[in-house]
């Protein structure tokens, strides 16, 4: 991920500003200028609709902004606008996302290419405003693409890629652009923006295939289908997800040429020759990478694999990156109570067909915003080096009885 500071000062496309994950998302929305935004603000994603509503009020965009009375209505309005043929965006978090749950599979089944800023926050109860992935993970089977970003720059760039990905005729699937609540959404840091004109050219305008408002070619959405066709419609939807990796690669190449920044579906850091690899997602990755550098200086062949695209899950790439390792730790920022946590389950599943059996250690960390420090990452690597395998997940940074 090439960073701006190394780039040519004379580059006229260069606009680096201090901003946050939320405000970078809102700036991307301003530049994309969607047709409709319907939102019901909730912490920590509040700033996205708040800032965007300012753009609307000031006439910086010509978006129709729909203020609604609940998250359920917000996503419902988005689905209506999207099948009507509009380019549609929204944002939410935590229990707001949970309230939308009923509508997510409908959006996916209607092939409504909505781009959604999901700012990860723990699900109540107890009420907690801080980050974990317990809001987005329950939506993993809803038929949406899920991309998890590490920092504000990646949030911005991912919004651009997601508009094209969602609307691509071979994909036609809504996308969640996930970022960690507060840690990313409220951290103030430099982000390099594209020029408005470059964005306009990159995202183009939506060309809907079957818009509801095309009265010359009438179509019906939300109709009744019994067992004779439901299965086929679901199969079609699954094919849309299956096409994501090919289309994403094409878009990524195009975006690198424009921005100089590249985001593969998995981010491999020193994994090629690594003996021990920690697999993680989102903002906690930087701590692991810093510890990998420390361990490398000490002669330990450590590596870090960040899963950026969770749906569709890039199993082939993961298998290729992790096969032959001595052992692997998977760190989940959400639990699946009574089962294997979402990331660990995918990694184990991906590795099942690898020729050698790679031991996978599972960990749960960071629930409700519990911080994740370099010492925590180091202890995980130490478990790997000592081959201290345990059945079931271990907890990182959990207070025990004597704390």
């Amino acid at each position, binding site marked *: 991920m090439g*960073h701006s*500071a190394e780039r040519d000062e004379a580059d006229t496309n260069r606009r680096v500003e*201090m901003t946050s994950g939320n405000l970078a998302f809102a700036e991307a929305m301003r530049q994309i200028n969607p047709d409709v935004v319907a939102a019901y603000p909730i912490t920590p994603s509040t700033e996205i609709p708040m800032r965007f509503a300012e753009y609307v009020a000031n006439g910086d965009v010509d978006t129709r902004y729909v203020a609604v009375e609940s998250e359920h209505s917000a996503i419902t309005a988005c689905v209506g606008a999207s099948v009507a043929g509009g380019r549609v965006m929204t944002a939410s978090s935590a229990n707001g996302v949970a309230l939308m749950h009923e509508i997510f599979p409908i959006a996916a089944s209607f092939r409504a290419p909505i781009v959604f800023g999901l700012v990860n926050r723990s699900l109540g109860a107890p009420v907690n*405003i*801080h980050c974990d992935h317990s809001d987005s993970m329950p939506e993993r089977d809803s038929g949406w693409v899920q991309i998890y970003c590490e*920092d504000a720059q990646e949030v911005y760039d991912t919004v651009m890629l997601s508009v094209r990905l969602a609307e691509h005729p071979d994909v036609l699937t809504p996308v969640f652009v996930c970022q*960690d609540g*507060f*840690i*990313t959404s*409220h*951290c*103030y*840091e*430099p982000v390099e923006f594209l020029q408005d004109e470059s964005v306009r050219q990159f995202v183009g305008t939506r060309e809907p295939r079957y818009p509801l408002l095309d009265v010359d070619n009438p179509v019906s959405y939300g109709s009744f289908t019994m067992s004779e066709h439901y299965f086929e419609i679901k199969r079609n939807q699954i094919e849309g997800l299956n096409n994501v990796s090919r289309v994403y690669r094409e878009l990524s190449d195009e975006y690198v040429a424009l921005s100089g920044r590249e985001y593969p579906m998995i981010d491999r850091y020193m994994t090629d020759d690594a003996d021990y690899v920690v697999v993680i997602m989102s*903002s*906690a*990755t*930087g*701590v692991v*990478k*810093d510890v990998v550098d420390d361990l490398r200086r000490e002669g330990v062949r450590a590596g870090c694999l960040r899963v950026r695209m969770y749906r569709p899950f890039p199993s082939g790439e993961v298998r290729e990156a992790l096969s032959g390792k001595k052992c692997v730790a998977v760190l989940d920022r959400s639990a699946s109570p009574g089962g294997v946590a979402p990331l660990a389950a995918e990694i184990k599943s991906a590795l099942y067909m690898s020729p050698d059996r790679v031991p996978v250690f599972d960990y749960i960390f960071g629930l409700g915003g519990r*911080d*994740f*420090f*370099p010492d925590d990452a180091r202890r995980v690597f130490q478990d790997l080096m000592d081959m201290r395998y345990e059945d079931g997940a271990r907890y990182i940074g959990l207070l025990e009885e004597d704390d």
Partner: protein
Amino acid sequence: MVDTMNGTIEVRWHGRGGQGAKSASAVLAEVLFGEGKYVQSFPEYGAERQGAPIRAYNRVSNRPIRRRCGVQNPDIVVVVDPTMVESANPSEGCADDAIYLVNTPEDAGSLRRRLGLADSARVLAVDATRITIEELGQNRPNAPILGALSRVFSDVPAETFADHFTKKMKSLSPKALEANRRAILRGREEATLA
């Protein structure tokens, strides 16, 4: 006083909700970003009420900053509210040679004795509350604190902080802007070091 050539400098701010520690941390990040550094500024979000103790953080580096956890071992500690010198435990997690910048009427020497710091620690004391009451007629200690911080980031002149502040606060009246500029420069001049 500090050197970002060898790694990342970490700053921890102690203030009270509504005092502007979060904004001061953001302004510091913007100024150092303007000087070509990589920066982060992030508050610790808790219950958001006026007067409650809050912490905010900065990281500053010549290289991209990857870690995004809270700051555990700050190189610089800024105490925005004089009543927090004891209650906030400003030296928590600090190395012996940490730098402390405190808003206090006390002089730096007696403050360092009171905090029980190691000989290698450096203490900057500035009566930011008094300066802003005199210049702005209000207790808004950020401007002199930022001025005093320009002595910590010694390669950044106080004028840069003042210019940035003026640009950022352009909605203020020219009179208020000029008062803030004086408060920043006075913060730099009047801070005592021990």
